Structures are given as structure tokens and as C-alpha cells.
């Protein structure tokens, strides 16, 4: 029983990270219809920037995360301006290839700047606590609390503020949004900013329990794609729910099926889903 609770908690933790990454991906997809393969690189850079500001300047963990969010968010904006904006009229295959190009570049860059070594990130929250017989680390609790608060804030931002509602409007109808006077360029930049920021938060929160290395974004981004297809590409609640579904199925699968193959679960799930529903689980017909 203890194992089950422990694994459920682990699933929640992994799910929180996945959800945050998938949220950024789904926002960009919803607005620009770009499957941003470079999103995994933003995630990786988020962890490195946090790590570096902590080590180099001795900044506090939270301050380092804030800086990371800012830098990675701006990088996202830069990507939009330099690459995706010029490609907005190109055939869809071009966006994907361009995104892959960015991914390769950022990874090579990280390798030059930080080396290929695996690094660990120490935070002030290494304590272990015991709740009802279950051993938890502070950091893991932090990941869950942090991720959920970010999601709530994002929700409030999108639903309650004017700027947020323009994002929703554009996701629903790009041309319509343009017609009612929404500056679609600005909204696109803002979306990339948020998307990058979310990736940085996810990476910075999860890095202390994982490791930091140039290829750390690969699996996460692949799974994030699985998640947004699961939850409907462009759907915000879908990304959150999908993230937790994958998180739980992985942690439970690792315990009860096979630890070796736990990474494969998400992909098999996706292959099965797309085999039956070629447009994803919650495709909106007619769009």
C-alpha cells in the first residue's frame, strides 16, 4: 500500500512537470499551429540558466528561477521573430524543419557553454519529511505546489485579464481576431514568452530531482507532444489532464510492469490513440 501511495505521489510530481511543458507547447500550437520541436531546448536552457545564476552569482533559487523565466521567455520571443514569423506563409513542413534546426543549434550551444557532463542542482529544499508513513522530499512537494500555482495563475491570466483573453480569442479564430483589431503579432510574441517561461519553470523545478545535461529536453518534449495530442492540440485543460495521465501511467507502469520500459509507455499510448483517432482524442471537427 505504501508503495502505491509513494508511486501515486511520484506520478503527481512527474505529471506536474509534464503538464507545465505541455502547456507551453499547446499554447504555441493553439495560436500559431506550429509544433515547436525546439520547445525541449527551451526546457533544457531553463535548467542551465537557473543552475548557472545560482552557482556563478550565488543567487537564491527563487531569484534564479525568475531570471531563467525572463531569459528563456525572451529567447522564445526571439525565435518567433527570427524564424517562425518569416515562415508564417510557408508550407507547414517548413515550420517543423526550422524548429528542428533551432533545437539542434541550442543543444550544441549548451554543450559548448556548459559541456556534456551531467550536473546536479542543489537547492535549499533537500530535507526529507515523513507524512503518514510516506517519505517525501521538500523539493518534490515544491514541484507540485509550484506547478499547480503556476497553472492557476495562468488560468486567471487567460480568463480574467484583457491580454489573456486576446490569446484565447486568437487561438479560437485567428482571422476573426485580426479583424476585431487584435495585434496578432504581439499576441504571438506574448505566447512565445509565456511558453518559454513555463518551460523554464518546469525545468528549474524538476532539475534538482533529476540531472541537468544538454539532451535533457529530448524525452520531455517528446512526451509533451504525446500529451497535447492526448489532450487535443491547442487545448489548455487537455494539456494539464494529459500531463497527469502520462505522469501516473509512467510511475505506476514502472512499478507494476517494468522499470526498463517505463519511458516507452507514453509513446505506445500515443501510437495506439492515433491509430484509432488520427486527429487526436479531442479533435474539433470542422476546424
Amino acid at each position, binding site marked *: 500500500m505504501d508503495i502505491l501511495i509513494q508511486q501515486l505521489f511520484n506520478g503527481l510530481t512527474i505529471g506536474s512537470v509534464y503538464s507545465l511543458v505541455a502547456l507551453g507547447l499547446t499554447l504555441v500550437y493553439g495560436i500559431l499551429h506550429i509544433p515547436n520541436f525546439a520547445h525541449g531546448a527551451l526546457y533544457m536552457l531553463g535548467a542551465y540558466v537557473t543552475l548557472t545564476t545560482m552557482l556563478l552569482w550565488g543567487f537564491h533559487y527563487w531569484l534564479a528561477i525568475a531570471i531563467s523565466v525572463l531569459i528563456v521567455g525572451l529567447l522564445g520571443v526571439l525565435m518567433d521573430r527570427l524564424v517562425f514569423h518569416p515562415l508564417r506563409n510557408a508550407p507547414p513542413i517548413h515550420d517543423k524543419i526550422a524548429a528542428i534546426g533551432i533545437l539542434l543549434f541550442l543543444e550544441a550551444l549548451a554543450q559548448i557553454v556548459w559541456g556534456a557532463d551531467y550536473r546536479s542542482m542543489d537547492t535549499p529544499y533537500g530535507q526529507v519529511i515523513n507524512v503518514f508513513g510516506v517519505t517525501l522530499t521538500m523539493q518534490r512537494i515544491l514541484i507540485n505546489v509550484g506547478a499547480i500555482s503556476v497553472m492557476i495563475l495562468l488560468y486567471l491570466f487567460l480568463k480574467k485579464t484583457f491580454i489573456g483573453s486576446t490569446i484565447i480569442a486568437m487561438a479560437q479564430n485567428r482571422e476573426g481576431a485580426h479583424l476585431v483589431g487584435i495585434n496578432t503579432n504581439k499576441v504571438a510574441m506574448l505566447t512565445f514568452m509565456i511558453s518559454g517561461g513555463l518551460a523554464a519553470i518546469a525545468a528549474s523545478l524538476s532539475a534538482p530531482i533529476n540531472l541537468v545535461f544538454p539532451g535533457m529536453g529530448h524525452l520531455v518534449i517528446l512526451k509533451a507532444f504525446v500529451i497535447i*495530442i492526448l489532450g487535443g492540440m491547442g487545448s489548455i485543460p487537455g494539456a494539464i489532464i494529459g500531463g497527469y495521465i502520462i505522469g501516473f501511467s509512467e510511475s505506476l507502469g514502472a512499478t507494476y510492469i517494468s522499470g526498463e520500459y517505463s519511458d516507452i509507455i507514453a509513446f505506445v499510448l500515443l501510437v495506439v490513440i492515433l491509430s484509432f483517432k488520427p486527429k*487526436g482524442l479531442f479533435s474539433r471537427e470542422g476546424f
Partner: protein
Amino acid sequence: MTSLLGKRITVVGLIVAACVFPFITSNLYMLHILTLAFIWMIAVYGLNLLAGYTGYLSLAQAGFFAIGAYSLGLLTVKAGLSYWLAFVLACVITSAIGFLVGLVALRTREHFFAIYTLCVGYIIYLVIDKWDGLTGGVRGLIGIPAPANIGPISFQNPLSQYYLILFFLLLTIFVMYRIIHSLSGRTFIAIRNSEELAQTIGISTMKAKLLAFVLSTFFAGLSGALYASFIRFLGPDIAYITVIFDLLTYLLVGGIGTLAGPIVGTFLVVTVSQSLQFLQDYRMLIFGPLLTLLIIFYPRGIAGALQDWIAKLSSKKKQTPPKQRKNGKGAYVHSQTSEKKVKEG
């Protein structure tokens, strides 16, 4: 007609150059690199047929390459089959798996197809990596034999392997040329332009796409089988995502959707990265932005840019008939915006 003759001379010249190359250089390393480049070219041709001519970007190509390679390796090393039987089976197995994957994958479109195939590629990688008992996992598969003799011809030394692989490359190009310049090729291109339109002019798009997909996996398998018996060692990383990125780079630099693209791109990128050996790990620092810049400014790569340039020259010579052609350029711009509509729709 002169341009056709010129083309023929270029092609014959290139083939002759490839044939005499080993006699010009005694550098075995160069020979090795070139042979390897030939192997990649075959895989890139497969990718080109699907992504370039049919418009479906498959990110599972490295996975199918690995299936071909491991099939040959396992059939010779573990099952003890004769080399050429294993060789043929490797291509058949890869195409058969390609057929099954294609049957499902091709129900999806555009982004979904790219992501689906990316996941399929990743599953292939993970299976090779984790299935120790069969594939040797991370330790790899060793002891793969070189191609067996055909009659009196032996393929034990690098020179004869060079020619063997060159032969398969030329065969690949020949087959590609004939496919592209046939009704089947036109069918693929029609699907790339607009699947909806292709269907309304009576093309069974699913059948045609499946054909293109299976062909592309067949060439991936062929390339993988050649790779296995050339390098004679296999590790799971040949199925890793970086390999598909390499293949894509070759294709993009050379020119996606052009017949010469795979040769031009692979040759250039492989030789350039060889001379930038010190950059080996960081070569993506150059190729990453290159890929992105190319797709923005020269979406059809070097071969495509050359083609457009030649077309421009020849159309200037011909001069357009005076009949009220307001603005040829304007029409082109218009058609590009109409592509955008499809994308958003």
C-alpha cells in the same frame, strides 16, 4: 535539347568521377568516408521520396534504417543465414514493418504524422536499446560479416566495398529517376500539392501514400543493411533522433524534392563536417542555424536554387508571349498566400 545533353554529360561525368576516385586517392580514410556518404545518400533518397515528393515528413526514417541494419546483423550473426539471403530479407523485413506502420501512420496528416513517426522512431530506438537479449542493447552487436563473394568477386577489401555500395547507390538513383518521371511520381507530387485535389482527380491517395512510405522504408532498410556489413558493428544510437536530424540536414542542404538534392547535400555536409573534425560534437552549432536559414531563404536547397536559376535564365531567353500577361511575379505571390490558407484551414 542542349540542356538535356548537358545534363547527360554531367551525369556520366559524375559516374566516371566516382568510379575513378579510388585510383586518384590512395587515402583509405577518404575512401571510407565517401563509402559511408553513399550509404547515407540511399537513406536520404528514401526520405526525399516521402517528404520531398509526397509531402509527408517522416521522422521514423532513422528507425527503419536501424531495422534494416539490425535485421542483417541478427540474421547473419545469430541466425547464421547466408549473407545475401539475409541482405534480401533485411530489405523485405524493413518494408514489411514499414507497410504496417504506414497503414496506421498515414491516416494522420501533417503535424500529427510528423509526431506519430517521431514516436515510432523513438519506440524503435528504445526497443533496440532495452532488448538486450536480442540486440545486445548498449553493448552493441559485433561480428557482422562483410558482404559474401558473388562468384569470383570478393567484398573483403575497402575498394570492392566502395564499388558495391556505389553500385547500389546508382541503382537507387536510377530507380528514383524512373519513379519521379512517371505517372506514379506525378501521383506523389499531386498529393504533395493538395491531397484533396489529388483525390478528386481520381487518385487513391491512401494507396499512393502507402506506396511512397513503403518505398522510403525499403531504401532505409537497404541503406541500413549496407551500413551493417560495412561498419560491421551496430549500436542502438543508429536509431537515435540525431540520425534523422542528420538525414534531414543532408536533404535540406541539397534540396528537398529534387533528384540531385540527396547527393549534393550528403556529399557537401559529410565532407565539410570531416574537414571541421575538431568541431565534431559542435557541428550542429553550424548545421542547426543552416537548416533554419535554408528553409527560410532557400526552401529547396542548393539543387532547387540552381534549378530555379536555370529556369529563370531559359525563360528569359524564350521570352513570354506578349498576350496580356500582366505580372507573372504577382501570380506567384498570390499562389503562395493561397498555401497559407490551407495551412490555417
